[in-house]
């Protein structure tokens, strides 16, 4: 006779055997990412802790995945999570072209199985004066650029996001004045810096659509808008490429966009930042913003002799 009642899952809720077996093989390291293609849910990634991940406490995952800017899905910070479910991140091809000796076309599904994927726990500072700590999983951009063998004439790297208005409702918003695709750029030496990451996941899982699936740029010493999402094409150039926010408001958003508490945005101070994750109106925290977001040791040399007030 049963003494205890406990809630039993419905048969339909139980994970099918082939699916959990494939998960096991994933954990075992074997490539079994077949369930990944077209899946709306995040799949786990094989990853290992990389360098530069200091003693930082990550922001709750719920906040990282439900509070961010991704104007392709709408202008409110809840919009990306609310309106990105129709986006299909796979299959996906990433092109590396332009001034390279070996143009590359990468199958991102293969890239997701790469043993080179490592975890980097980075600070993320938005130009709007809020900040998070995010555990990214990705591959240093330099690794991929070296594979393409940059031509000596190349000085800059241009990044281009995807245009897919049928799956990205924000691209139908006519009022914003944003020209799609979203474009970003770095100097080649910035792109080759070991901190610069091509992220394929967060929290050990593939990137959710709203965070830039299937792959995005992470440049932790720059404001968040430099981290272009859902990248389709990377081109090496011999000149500085146009960038989306600089094109929209050149007096507010510079090409460099290095985190700098001494150079304010015309509309607000950049000296401090609101720390995301408190969830309580009267318990929210503000903290001083660090020069280069705390990564000066790794990147200050890139800008030696430059007037950072002018090149903001």
């Amino acid at each position, binding site marked *: 006779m049963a003494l205890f009642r406990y809630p039993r899952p419905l048969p339909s809720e139980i994970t099918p055997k082939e699916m959990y077996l494939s998960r096991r093989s994933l954990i075992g390291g074997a490539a079994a990412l077949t369930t990944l293609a077209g899946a709306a849910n995040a799949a786990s990634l094989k990853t290992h802790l990389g360098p530069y991940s200091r003693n930082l406490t990550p922001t709750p995952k719920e906040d990282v995945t439900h509070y961010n800017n991704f104007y392709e899905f709408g*202008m*409110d910070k809840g919009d990306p999570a609310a309106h990105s479910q129709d986006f299909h991140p796979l299959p996906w091809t990433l092109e590396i072209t332009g001034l390279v000796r070996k143009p590359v076309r990468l199958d991102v599904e293969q890239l997701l199985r790469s043993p080179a994927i490592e975890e980097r726990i980075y600070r993320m500072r938005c130009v709007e004066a809020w900040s998070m700590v995010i555990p990214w999983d990705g591959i240093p951009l330099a690794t991929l650029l070296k594979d393409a063998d940059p031509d000596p004439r190349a000085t800059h790297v241009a990044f281009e996001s995807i245009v897919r208005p049928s799956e990205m409702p924000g691209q139908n*918003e006519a*009022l914003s004045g944003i020209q799609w695709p979203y474009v970003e750029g770095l100097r080649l030496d910035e792109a080759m810096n070991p901190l610069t990451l091509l992220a394929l996941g967060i929290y050990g899982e593939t990137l959710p659509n709203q965070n830039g699936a299937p792959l995005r740029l992470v440049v932790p010493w720059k404001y968040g808008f430099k981290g272009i999402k859902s990248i389709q094409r990377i081109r090496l150039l011999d000149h500085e490429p146009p960038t989306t926010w600089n094109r929209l408001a050149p007096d507010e958003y510079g090409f460099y966009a290095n985190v700098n508490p001494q150079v304010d945005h015309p509309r*607000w101070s950049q000296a*401090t930042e*609101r720390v995301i*994750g408190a*969830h309580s109106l*009267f318990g929210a925290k503000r903290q001083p913003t660090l020069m280069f977001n705390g990564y000066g040791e790794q990147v200050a040399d890139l800008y030696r002799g430059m007037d950072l007030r002018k090149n903001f």
Partner: protein
Amino acid sequence: MQALPPHAVPEISGVLKRHWRLVLYPIGMIPAVWLVWQGQHGALGADPVNVFERSLGLWAFRFLLVCLALVPLRRFTGLNLLRYRRLTGLLTFFYASLHLLAYVGLDHGFDLSILWADMTHRYFIILGMSALILLIPLALTSNALSLRLLKRRWKFLHRLIYPAAILAGIHFFLSFKTLNSVSAPYLAILALILLIRFLPRSQTGNGI
């Protein structure tokens, strides 16, 4: 609970008719109370201070638009709600003041160096502050005594609502990174109200 005697219901409605202020002022304050409640219960999301501050500003702008719309409403529909101008005007001031308090206290923790830099250098902040400053004399004279004492000058003084609305409108526009479908309708309503107010009557068709 005791049942009300039959004659009490018409009595209550009569009291409410005469003392509608007792009902409408508290109703107007519900959004503020609701925002504080949400803020304390984690319902304002990941960046509660920002949402709280911006929502208060938006409520101030909404009440300002309603206040300004009452005159054209009477002119074009004949519906006379002018007696609610003081109510909506004072609620505008109430929300604008809370908006300022949230920015100074909650957002910047009364950090005077940052606030001073904001108020002296940033046109976005200066515009919003100026709008609020223009509303102060209006709030202070929104009573029967001032109306009696100032006579015709009262009407002149209260035209300050128009420059305040223009400043607030620019401040509101600048609070978004780009024009968008959230801000555009509010700005369109403000533009329409100003157009009706400042175009000569003959051009607008004299009260159609």
